[in-house]
């Protein structure tokens, strides 16, 4: 037998390892970085050596992030939310992200390099899917019976969301769902109804709706985040919408908006601390003749001037 290949192989391996180690020492030296992971029910913090991809550090610290392509930005399953640190979103990730997700600073864990302290959040609607992957990996009984019905069952079993609703609230949601159950495109009507009742979409209500409608939660979530008029965050009692349509804009709509922002101390899309006002923009409210226009709840104010803004606000205080 010719054992030369063993020697050659080891020679090449040695050269490669030594080169990489040297490069590691000389080129990449980010020092120690702290990673803070927030999940719905727990928070974890650990210190790693910088320079690795986030997914590797997470896996090493027993946080399961699903991935099927082994960290090559091909499957797009390892989504997490970066609260701070981690840099800009990369073009390799953009194709996997919806506009909403980009706005939320969602990233692929396999593309985020840990170069400094980083703070991430793994939303629950992602971990629900992940739990199954976890079960699949660790529980030999569950391993081979994985399919979509399990996913649904898992969500149903997950009492965390639904138990937060008390009985009266549950029946209120049931009523809304029943009213539209047989209508075409029922979900959107139901969501509108919820919006009217709560002023926003509480997460547990959405979960309950997805159960009642027998729709995947992701579907309900998708619809409810699509429209500008809907919000996942609590909204003020009065919603101010500043028209940004062409004629209103030309007539100074954005100046009105700025003055409202200053007066209320909030930015567009936010709600005042006392939950009295929410500020939004809208693309047209059909009052181009009276531009610039502002609507508060169902009332419309035309020919608004900056000096008049206070008067309008006073009515709702």
């Amino acid at each position, binding site marked *: 037998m*010719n054992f*030369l*290949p063993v020697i*050659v*192989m080891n020679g*090449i*391996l040695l050269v*490669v390892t030594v*080169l*990489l180690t040297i*490069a*590691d020492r000389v*080129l*990449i030296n980010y020092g120690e970085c702290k990673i803070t992971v927030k999940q719905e029910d727990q928070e974890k913090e650990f210190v790693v050596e910088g320079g690795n991809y986030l997914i590797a550090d997470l896996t090493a610290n027993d946080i399961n992030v699903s991935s099927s*392509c*082994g*960290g*090559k*930005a*091909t499957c797009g399953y390892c989504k997490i939310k970066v609260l701070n640190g981690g840099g800009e979103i*990369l*073009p*390799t990730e*953009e*194709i996997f992200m919806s506009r909403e997700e980009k706005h939320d600073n969602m990233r692929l864990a396999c*593309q985020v390099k840990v170069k400094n302290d980083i703070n991430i959040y793994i939303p629950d609607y992602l971990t629900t899917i992940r739990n199954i992957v976890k079960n699949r990996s660790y529980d030999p009984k569950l391993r081979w019976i994985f399919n979509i019905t399990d996913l649904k069952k898992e969500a149903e079993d997950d009492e965390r969301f639904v138990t937060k609703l008390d009985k009266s609230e549950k029946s209120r949601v049931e009523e809304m769902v029943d009213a539209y159950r047989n209508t075409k495109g029922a979900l959107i009507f139901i969501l509108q109804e919820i919006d009217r009742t709560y002023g926003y979409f509480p997460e547990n209500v959405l979960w309950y709706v997805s159960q009642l409608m027998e729709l995947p939660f992701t579907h309900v979530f998708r619809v409810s985040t699509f429209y500008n008029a809907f919000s996942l965050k609590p909204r003020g009692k009065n919603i101010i919408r500043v028209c940004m349509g062409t004629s209103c804009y030309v007539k100074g709509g954005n100046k009105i908006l700025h003055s409202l922002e200053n007066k209320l101390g909030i930015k567009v899309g936010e709600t005042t601390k006392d939950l009295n006002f929410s500020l939004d923009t809208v693309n047209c409210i059909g009052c181009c003749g009276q531009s610039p226009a502002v609507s508060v709840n169902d009332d419309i104010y035309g020919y608004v001037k900056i000096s008049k803004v206070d008067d309008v606000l006073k009515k709702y205080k």
Partner: protein
Amino acid sequence: MGNLLTIFIAAVFTHNIALTYLLGMCPFIALSKSFKTAFGMGIAVIFVVTLTAAINWPIYHLILVPAGCELIYYIVFIIVIAASVQLVEMIMEKFFVVLQASFGIFLPLITVNCTVLAVSLFMVLRSYSYLATIVFAFGSAVGWMLAILIVAAINEKLRLVSDIPKGLRGPGIIMIIAGIIALAFLGFGGMVRIQ
């Protein structure tokens, strides 16, 4: 010179690595949704493929063959590819930050791209000379980039204007576009001949 030109044209058109040999398909499907991304990936592939072929050729012909170790050339090639990609990435991150942002990020995705290994394997299989290897590697990568750019450009426009059946959206339609382009590339057949 004529020979090198033949190899180049063969690698880009008649024996296109993506459309004739069906290699490098994973990133092909994942990244051909946007022209910009496809472009960055294409440049990175050109760089890595040429670089690794240029390293692998001497290793194969000056170390492995004289030592009678052709047996392990798969392992050696893939390790060289992985290591050199990692090194280039580190160097780039340190010294060429701008480059890193625009195309360095694609580098780690390429390590296990079939195109890179395939070019090194074909170079052995066809016993090219050093110069021919580099031309072949460069040409193959250019061909890959050409293919992904065409498909990405068509796909980008197609998605805006057409009502694609649900099940066909995403990878399905990309495969069909790639199939049609591959069909068109068959027309180049016979333009040049390779040994």
